[in-house]
C-alpha cells in the first residue's frame, strides 16, 4: 500500500509517498504499529493520525489497497 506523507512525516520517511510491501496490515492501528516499529523517530516528534480517503480514521478502521491513505502530523495552518 502507499501512504501520502506531509510535514514532518515527509522528513521522517524521506519521501512524499511511502510504499509498504507488508501484506497483512488490515487496520489503521496495525498500520500505525508498523510505522512506529520501522520509523521510531515518529514517537520523538509528535502524535500523528492516519487519513483514509480524506477523513481522519480511528485505529479499528479497516483499510485496503484501494484506499487513499495519508500520514497526518499535527496540523499548523492559519
Amino acid at each position, binding site marked *: 500500500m502507499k501512504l*501520502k506523507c*506531509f*510535514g*514532518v512525516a*515527509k*522528513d521522517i520517511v524521506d519521501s512524499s509517498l511511502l510504499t509498504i510491501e507488508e501484506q497483512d496490515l488490515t487496520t489503521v492501528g496495525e498500520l500505525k504499529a508498523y510505522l512506529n516499529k520501522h520509523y521510531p523517530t515518529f514517537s*520523538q*516528534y*509528535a502524535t500523528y493520525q492516519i*487519513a483514509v480517503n*480524506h*477523513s481522519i480514521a480511528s485505529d479499528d478502521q479497516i483499510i485496503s489497497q484501494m484506499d487513499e491513505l*495519508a500520514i*497526518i*502530523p*499535527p*496540523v*499548523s*495552518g*492559519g
Partner: protein
Amino acid sequence: MELNIDIQILKNQLSIDDCYEFILDETCGGICLFIGTVRNHNKGESVKFLDFESYAEMALKEMRQIAQECQSKFKAKKVAIHHKEGKADIKDKAVIIAISCIHRKEAFEACEYAIDQLKSRVPIWKKEHLADGSYWINSRP
C-alpha cells in the same frame, strides 16, 4: 448553498478584495474578515519566512465543511476561506476568512469559529525558517 462558499488554496498572494467581493451580499449588514499574517518572531526566536504545505484534496474538503458549519451554526450567508501554499514572507497573508451575515454578532462569532476550526483540523502544515534552521510547527522534537 454551494454557490455561497468560496474555498481556495493559493500559491499566489491572497487577495482581500477577492474575498470581500465574493461575500458582499445585498441582504447582509455585517461582514467580518479575519486575516492571519506572517509575523517575524515566534517563542522568542526570529522568523525569516514560512513555508506552507497542504494535503490539498482533504484540506479543501475540511475548509468547505467548516464554511458549511458557519452557515448552519451562525446563519452565515456567504463564506470565503483562502489559504496560502508555499513560501510566505513576513507580513504576507497566510489565511483570509471572510463572512457575511445579516447582523454583526453572528459575523464575528462565525469568523472566530472558522479560524479556530481551521487551525485545529485542516491538514495544512507550516514550516518556520529561523536564522539557525527550520522546523515544522507543532512537530519540533
